[in-house]
């Protein structure tokens, strides 16, 4: 059931109407650009949490 944490990855990455805007600007990057780069580590972390919770320590 922990796999439910993978769902926000799709929502965050595909919510185009939400992130198609120029402000707030961060380090010179319009929102559209820094937001999409910022969700990459978030996605990575969510996948890692799912892996850690599911992992039963079996062989590779």
């Amino acid at each position, binding site marked *: 059931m922990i796999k439910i944490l*993978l769902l926000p990855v799709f929502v965050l990455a595909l919510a185009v109407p939400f992130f198609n805007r*120029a402000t707030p600007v961060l*380090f010179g990057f*319009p929102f*559209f*650009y820094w937001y*999409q780069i910022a969700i990459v580590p978030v996605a990575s972390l969510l*996948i890692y949490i799912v892996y850690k919770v599911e992992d039963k320590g079996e062989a590779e």
Partner: protein
Amino acid sequence: MMPHPAATIVFLILIAAVIVLGFAAGRWNAGNLAHIEEWGLGGRRFGTWVSWFLIGGDAYTAYTFIAIPALMFGAGAIGFFAVPYTVVCYPILYLVFPKLWRVAKAHGYITGPEFVRGRYGNRWLALAVGVTGIFATMPYIALQLIGMQTVIGALGLPGHIPLIIAFAVLAAFTYTSGLRAPAMISIVKDLLIYLTVLTAIIVIPIELGGFGAVFAQIPTAKLLLPTPPADSGGAYTGYATLALGSAMALFLYPHTTTGILSAAGPRVIKRNAALLPAYTIMLGMLALIGFMAVAAGVRDMPEFASGFAQYGTSFPVPALLLHAFPGWFAGVAFGAIAIGALVPAAIMAIAAANIFTRDIWTQFVPTASTGGETQVAKLFAIFMVVGAVAFILAIPATYAVQLQLLGGMWIIQTFPAIAFSVFTRFFNGWALLAGWAVGVVSATWLAGLNHFTGAIWAFHVLGYTLPSYIALATVLLNAGVAAALSLPLNALANDRAGDETSAADYG
């Protein structure tokens, strides 16, 4: 005759080093290379880090490094779909492919189509899936050559000779070393790419007055997606479906499936689903190099006029690298791009050869024996590389780009047969074959209506316009047809007895 001597010398040294590495790779952790699981899958023993480099080097190709910034340079914000695309592909990798790895290991499958044949006992469905993979791969290899040709041309090296030499060598070390060659080279390639991109995103914005100044040079119409009209999804659904459809297709390509199946186990794949997004950050930064090329004004620099005339919109990245860096570092960057072409091209040739051998040759040629399968695979890999070179020399590059666009729409049609089938045996093999046919025909037809240049079609649903990536819309149709036909077909002629896998195989 050598307009960029320092860049050219560094470039040639890097390529030579990689060639030596490619031939030496066969001895690495040596297995019996006469066995196809060793030649074509590296013996299924790559650990987390080698798999990270291999799958990263495989999925993020030289063509990507040229084409995505070029799309940003030409079309603007829409080109950034590459970032959400390479985010949502990872939950899909996590959910589907560890299961595919387990069943493949249990039954000795080395390709996706073999799994489909084992699951449904239907070699015609497997043939359809396999042929789709080979056809989708051919233009992909050709595009790697175009990526390499662009940097060779930017160095001012003459004609097609360097390209032919590079790919003759590629064919030779692929033949002798199999998948170990690109696995080893991908480590060098990715380190060079990371070095290039990190340097570029630090140095070039400083030269141009910061990221704010770069974005300020981009016209508003290209900086964001246009706001859709009230009765249409507009660019929003176009962008999202392009990202999702591309993500669904990514790991179905033979070369990416090969990269995944060569991992040492399901945990390696799951860890990599969390670790591979590092490449996506790099890709996002690389995409912005397209905007830096706009801000630097390379298009109007007289020294690049002939390059733009010859290579068109794929030229901004090489032009900016030559403009912004000292010669020797431009050589490093070009070397990284060229090696970034050789790695996926080698894996593509090997993957297509595995499919030809296991899903066509031994299944449909009556005299075939499994004893000679590795030799067949090695020869087919050479055929794929030679074919791609001939294709590039004989046919305009725009055809390769158009075929690559079609390839993405075709390969996604194998999603129901491969991805759904690791979870359920609800479907009937013949129903999946019918769904595949409907998907391939409708996608090709819609792409044809776009004159094979646009990937998005505006569907009209209940008075609302829904622009969608053709691949995503047609794979939904495909899955619908497969599901609808499975009910009556399972009632009339159930094919579940043909399933050689068992629930325990999927873990």
